């Protein structure tokens, strides 16, 4: 299990959390669950990083938290995307796409770049 696991790049976790909340409020445990399943068991979010990230996002106002009852009637803290969080998600997705495209471009290169124009 550990071998399949990829370390999350810094800042990637935030966008994943935001994205996972796009379908509705979730508590912390189901967020890890959702990310794990959505990435076909590749991305495993550590609890030690998940919760601080959630709290930070809540403090920044991207998430709103509310206490509620879980599926098996336990008291759980549910997070929901705020309007501000939705905007943030859109923006971070664009950044991530641009970043991924750039990395892909470099990695898939077959020849060195052309010399830059001196003039």
């Amino acid at each position, binding site marked *: 299990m550990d071998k399949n696991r990829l370390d999350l790049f810094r800042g990637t976790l935030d966008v994943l959390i935001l994205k996972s909340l796009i379908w*509705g*409020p979730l*508590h*912390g*445990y189901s967020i890890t669950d959702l990310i794990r399943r959505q990435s076909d068991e590749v991305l495993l979010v*550590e*609890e*030690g990083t998940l*919760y*601080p990230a959630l*709290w*930070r996002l*809540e*403090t920044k106002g991207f998430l709103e938290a*509310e*206490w*509620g*009852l*879980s*599926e*098996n009637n*336990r*008291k*759980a*803290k*549910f997070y929901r995307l705020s309007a501000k969080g939705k905007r943030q998600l859109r923006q971070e997705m664009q950044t991530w796409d641009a970043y991924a495209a750039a990395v892909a471009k470099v990695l898939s290169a077959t020849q060195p770049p052309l010399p830059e124009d001196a003039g």
Partner: protein
Amino acid sequence: MKPNRLWRRYDRLTGPDPAADVNDELRFHLEAKIDDLIAQGWEPQAARQEAERIFGDIRAVQHIGERIGEKRQRRKHLSVYWSDWLQDLRYAVRMLVKSPGFTLVAVLTLALGIGANTTIFSVINAVLLRPLPYTNPGRLVGVAESRPAASVTAAGLSWPVFTELQDHSQVFSAVAGVAGHALTLTGHGEPADVSTVAVTPDFFTVLEIQPLLGRVLLAGDGKRGAAAAVVLSENLWRSRFGADPNIAGSSITLDQRTYTVAGVMPASFHTPFFNQTEQMWIPLVQDPLFSGWTTRPPQVHWMTVIARLRPDVPVRKAQAEMQTVSPALAKQFPEESGWLLGIEPLQQAVVGNVRPQLLLLLGAVALVLLIACANIANLLLTRATSRSKEIALRIALGASKRRIARQLLTESTVLGLLGGAAGIGLACWSVSALALLLTPQLRQTYPIRLDGAVLGFAVVLSMAASLLSGLAPVFYAVRSNPQQNLREGAGAGEARGSQRARSFLAIAEVALAMIILVGAGLLLRSFSRLLAVSPGFETEHVVKAEISLPRFQYARPEQWAAFSNDLMMRLHSRPDLQNSAIAAPLPILDGAITLPFVISGNPPLPQGTANTANYVTASPQYFGVMGISVMRGRLFTEDDNDGAPPVAVISQALAKRYFPNQDPLGRQLVFGFTPQGHVSRQIVGVVADVHDVSLAKNPGPMMYVPFAQAPLWGGEVVVRSRLSTAVVSDAVRTATHAIDKDLPVTKIESFPGALDASVAEPRFRTLLLGIFSGIALLLAAIGIYGVVSFSVSRRTREIGVRMALGASPAGVMRLVIGESAKLLLLGLAVGIAGALVLTRFMATLLFGVAPTDPLTFGVVALLLAFVALAAAYVPARRAMRVDPMVALRCE
């Protein structure tokens, strides 16, 4: 998955708890994980261990969570605080708008108090707090000599002492002497007298001032035999020379002599102790008058001296040094013995005696503000009481007392700031009028402005006033019992503590008003005493004008005598100007010339002491024009001229003091004023005493000499006639210009007008304090009215019961008035005690009245009592008319 709204209440029940939240959240995570593991077939015990293993260091995460939670909580507090504040503000404004009468009265009261304080403070800020407009002004000092034995406090320096300081002092980096008079500027338009400051070479070095144009006077200009140079003021340069940029190096004519213009000083520059806006500065050695005085004996103290301390010398050390210098000087110049050198910071020296009166006024306006605050506190207290039901309701619904207090304070702060804003407006308007408090010289050196410091003062004052007037109501609103208030509502009797506070406020108002009224009363009495002083001369229908002869053209005393003779003859040739004379100096308007004298035939006085008297040279008609009566012997005649034996007339004070039980007539006095030396004169007459220095000072010994025997370079022409000032001044001018068309005639005034101006300062401060005390009286009356009328309205029911039980209306009246009288008497007692303590500090401002003057105290107490009882009478009458049936039914 459905968030349950019930849980939101959990948050509210015990208040937010970030640590518990974190703990709950993480525990849920573990439980969920364990559930999943058990579902996958793990043993419960192993499942828990595995879940905890996967989670890792749960404590660290918990710690992070708590920290983030606390931070968020703090931020939330802050935002709640601000939104509460906004809410308070809106509420306060709404409440104030709802009762416009109350708001208007409160704001106006505060505006009066704050406006008065701001205005007085703006003067104090300008004069006492703002530094002098010179470089590094803290290092500048004024040097003066005093002679305790003769109660001479701040005389100038004599020339030898000045040169001694200039050449040998270890504590000064530069010393400069200043003396001023007027020179006649000709060749640029009408001949004009321009006030001229003759300075020693270091003058500009001492003040460290840069010219606007050209250069200042340098050491070379101060040497004897150097070319005559002059520095012009910007005003003079603009008005007389069309702001000619190439003026430096050109020549101008002063007293018929050529001076080269060295430079121009900016308009902002003023010579300390001098007040004219159009000035020029010349080296002392080039001055036609003072250059001759450098050879004068040491007992003539004529130089105003300023100095800059060396950077490493503290003022105290310099003062100590001066004390050691004086005995050494006395050894060198025997005439100096008895004189003491002293220095004081230049600011202090320039401001002089303005300080006590400014502080007096500040004290007075502070009292006015305190009374205003007491009034507002009273009003707010009344409001808080009538709102007690509302407040009780809010407390019952869970508002914290702190929250209520904050809201009430916000209300009084809004009031305070509104009052402050209005007060600043008031100050803007009144500041220019207040400039009259200062002498023209001070007004110039210290322009009064509403600058940042003054505005800051006003804002701080408004806040302080808000707090002061808002605290008592808050205290009682918060302390009162909500249950009781809810039950009884606004109509019931109020808390005893609140009533006590109200009584205390009324007593305080009476006491404060008493103090300020006593101050005003004392000033008023003192001023009327001053006006009642008979100056010893009669000024009705007397006009005066000054003529000054340029000394280069009129170099010799014979010329001065010839001129005055000629002028008098021309004036006397007109039948309506028969009664005219020339003299110098005039009493009260001009400074006195104090000279030492020796009585021939008396044993010589011990070394270092001298008899002194004030000297006047006058033409024969002078005594007639001024209405100074002759007591013994004769007055001067036309025959007492240059060829005749020298004579003198003395005042009664001189006769009494120096010729006790002797006949002064026929005795010889030896004295003389420049350019004469000591001349032995026979006393031919004794005249009545004259207040020659000021109305407030007792007449001192005086000696008069005939103008023809001791002429001056010009003098004051005095004319008694039925003609108007304009006609007289035309006649004097015509006569003068018939002799010399280049002679300016200046300072033409009716004598009573000029005398009146000499008491402008005490009159103005009396007026101001009178206004302030009037405001105080009004506010106190309003305050007492408020207290009594409120207490009557609260006790309507009680009064109704009393009347139903047989109390007569008069009895009710007595009850109400009696209670007010109790407050009044207490207030008066405290006020009198306070006034006795405080009026001591205004002793220097009083003339002919003791600070504890019983008459003033008595009259003021009666006045205050009358006003206070009148204020109480109105509500007392209302109490008398209470209809017992209505009063009982309304409950």
